[in-house]
């Protein structure tokens, strides 16, 4: 408590020049905003009820009307009311709604399916470090599944509800942590609330970071580390801390760092980056090395960075060495593509630039917002940057968010590379910490709180418009339409390729082949079988080139069949639409797939004597592999076409 009192006096000092006290609580206003959020929720649900059977033009405006209404209602009360944190938490809960309506009963997205398979395996094996072929790296990062399994065991909730509960708890705390990070910089109350709001429009917030996937939890752990770090620096700035207090805070940061590292690799790396930039530029700092700050200041400044980095290095070195080969292509391939575009590297066949929104079917206003969003951020960044250079007394701790915004802006062009788009998108949940603080930086650097009333009103109206553009644009840029809305069957889509026929086939597999049946199939059928039949579906690897069965004009080689036998794969499931449709934006097996599966390659399966047809429906065939028959059959049919 003594520590609290010390901090209070210091903060009153550092914050007094810019703090604007919020207006007194107004119960009617709070109630009105709550009703508006409820109306927004009804509109969103209505849009989702219409989506399966109608064109996007009919339900998309309803969806956005609901979202914008809820966001603006929350913004109103968070900025001008007394309960900013509660409203930001409510916004986190509200934004669970769209994804919940996409998959209320079980996972449908690729990552979510993989992580849910890991969770089910942990629950059934009563042990961590389980495997799924859908996400081999997930084995070594069992943090999130471990917590969901604990919720399941201790509360009796089903695994899926436990997973949703965990993600809901984590998600509603994300804007709250951003609020506290902003307050500790220090940023005045209402601009800290704006920071929370802006973070809640980041491209990953509404559909990605609400999935049961490791980033959704790790991002909370990373933001908590950042918050503790910035608060520790703020306390150090006050000079009211003792060594033991600094040590205990560092210990808490170390505990959460362990959790972050065990949960997600990329978020841990992003956390190291954000802490490193913070250590270099956040006040109090005297000179580059902070030599005048004393030992405790150096300790507070650098220990969290080193702790998180050391935890990550040790985990990768001793538990998850495959992380390096998993992450390296995410950086190397886009870098190579960008270099080849500017002529600094040799171009390869995979180095194709993407055409943004080709075949996406999104309405024009969404595309406009998607292009406008990074432009608005870039303009804000330039204004803040120029002002930061000119107004030395107002600089404060604003260099940190500006550097992070610069990293975000650098990542935006990477999205046009075929290989870099996934990596760039994944970085935005972290770099948006800087973007979230940009309005506060602009307000402080342009001294908005000292301006005339009409200027403030114009700024507020402009800010609301920008918030809406960022919301619509970021969702459009970050999430394809089939990940956002249900709809008619779409070949190659994770979310829309599951039909009642698929579910019947999966149910048959579960009933007749049992849980854990090992099946080779294409990626979309693999997702459905993993989710609905608890099947194990090995993926294409250099050692297991299962795509040959679909693409190669000759029968599969004995080396592949040996590998399948060793892997105890007994079944092949084929969707005959693999040879009827082409999914340009999706891969049946890998990114190097040939464009088309020859129709005769699917038809020949019925004639191979070593495959026994077990199940047949309009589009699906389930075969059992007789390896003994294959090895006696192959020598005389090796050259068959």
């Amino acid at each position, binding site marked *: 408590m003594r520590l609290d009192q010390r901090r209070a006096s210091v903060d009153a000092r550092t914050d007094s020049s810019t703090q604007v006290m919020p207006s007194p609580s107004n119960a009617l206003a709070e109630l009105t905003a709550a009703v508006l959020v409820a109306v927004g929720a009804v509109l969103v649900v209505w849009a989702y009820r219409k989506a399966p059977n109608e064109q996007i033009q009919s339900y998309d405006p309803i969806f956005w009307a609901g979202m914008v209404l809820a966001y603006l209602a929350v913004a109103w009360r968070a900025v001008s009311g007394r309960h*900013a944190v509660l409203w930001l938490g409510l916004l986190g809960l509200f934004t669970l709604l769209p994804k919940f309506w996409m998959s209320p009963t079980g996972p449908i997205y690729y990552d979510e399916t993989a992580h849910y398979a890991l969770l089910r395996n942990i629950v059934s094996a009563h042990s961590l470090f389980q495997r799924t072929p859908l996400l081999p790296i997930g084995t070594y990062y069992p943090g999130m599944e471990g917590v969901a399994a604990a919720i399941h065991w201790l509360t009796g909730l089903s695994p899926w509800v436990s997973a949703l509960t965990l993600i809901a708890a984590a998600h509603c705390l994300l804007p709250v942590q951003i609020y506290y990070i902003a307050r500790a910089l220090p940023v005045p109350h209402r601009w800290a609330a704006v920071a929370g709001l802006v973070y809640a429009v980041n491209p990953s917030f509404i559909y990605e970071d609400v999935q049961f996937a490791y980033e959704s939890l790790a991002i909370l752990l990373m933001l908590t580390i950042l918050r503790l770090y910035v608060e520790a620096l703020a306390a150090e700035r006050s000079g009211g801390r003792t060594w033991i207090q600094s040590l205990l805070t560092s210990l808490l940061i170390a505990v959460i760092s362990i959790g972050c590292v065990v949960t997600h690799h990329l978020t841990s790396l992003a956390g190291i980056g954000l802490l490193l930039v913070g250590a270099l530029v956040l006040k109090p700092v005297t000179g580059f090395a902070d030599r005048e700050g004393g030992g405790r200041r150096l300790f507070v400044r650098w220990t969290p960075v080193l702790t998180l980095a050391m935890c990550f290095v040790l985990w990768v070195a001793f538990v998850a060495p495959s992380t390096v080969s998993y992450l390296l292509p995410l950086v190397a391939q886009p870098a190579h593509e960008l270099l080849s575009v500017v002529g600094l590297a040799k171009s390869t066949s995979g180095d194709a630039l993407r055409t943004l929104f080709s075949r996406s079917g999104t309405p024009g206003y969404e595309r406009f917002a998607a292009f406008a969003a990074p432009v608005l951020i870039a303009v804000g960044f330039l204004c803040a940057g120029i002002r930061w250079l000119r107004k030395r007394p107002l600089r404060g701790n604003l260099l940190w968010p500006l550097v992070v915004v610069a990293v975000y802006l650098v990542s935006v062009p990477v999205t046009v590379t075929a290989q870099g788009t996934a990596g760039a998108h994944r970085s935005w949940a972290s770099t948006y910490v800087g973007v979230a603080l940009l309005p506060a930086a602009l307000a402080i650097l342009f001294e908005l709180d000292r301006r005339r009333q009409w200027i403030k009103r114009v700024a507020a109206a402009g800010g609301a418009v920008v918030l809406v553009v960022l919301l619509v644009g970021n969702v459009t840029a970050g999430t394809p339409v089939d990940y956002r809305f249900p709809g008619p069957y779409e070949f190659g889509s994770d979310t829309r390729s599951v039909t009642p026929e698929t579910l019947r086939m999966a149910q048959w597999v579960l009933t007749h082949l049992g849980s854990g049946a090992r099946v080779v199939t294409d990626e979309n059928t693999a997702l459905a079988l993993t989710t609905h039949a608890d099947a194990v579906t090995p993926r294409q690897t250099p050692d297991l080139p299962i795509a040959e069965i679909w693409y190669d004009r000759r029968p599969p080689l004995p080396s592949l069949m040996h590998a399948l036998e060793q892997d105890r794969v007994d079944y092949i499931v084929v969707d005959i639409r693999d040879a009827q449709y082409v999914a340009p934006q999706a891969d049946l097996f890998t990114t190097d797939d040939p464009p088309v599966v020859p129709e005769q390659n699917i038809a020949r399966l019925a004639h191979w004597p070593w495959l026994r047809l077990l199940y047949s429906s309009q589009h699906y065939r389930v075969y059992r592999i007789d390896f003994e028959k294959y090895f006696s059959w192959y020598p005389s049919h090796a050259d068959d076409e």
Partner: protein
Amino acid sequence: MSRGLGDGPERRGISLRAARDPGLLALGAVLLMCAPVFPGFWRLVVLPALLLAPGYALLRLLRQPSDRPSIAIAVTASIVLVIIVSLILDVSGVPLGPVSLGLTLGGVTAVFLVGSYARELAGQQGRHRRT
């Protein structure tokens, strides 16, 4: 924690005593340990204990603020403690389940609480000797 670092005026509102009162933290520890014996839906009462008690107990032990703005840190700390406890049990070869996790998490929460009291007691005795 302070107003400057915290959430400003909303901090003056209703406090989350239920989460930070030492007696209720002890109750949380007991709930965690007894989780397997609760029938049916009654086990849901363990959920708030799981998400709050270990984290707040750790904050108390580490002399961190345990007021309302700290709830986000307490929930995060609880989640991390569940991860660490699961890892330790798993590496030790103990099968994960309601009994092993409930007993360990409840025990850890209780140890943190006792530790925080022991620390306070030691601090008081130290001050008493100096005066």
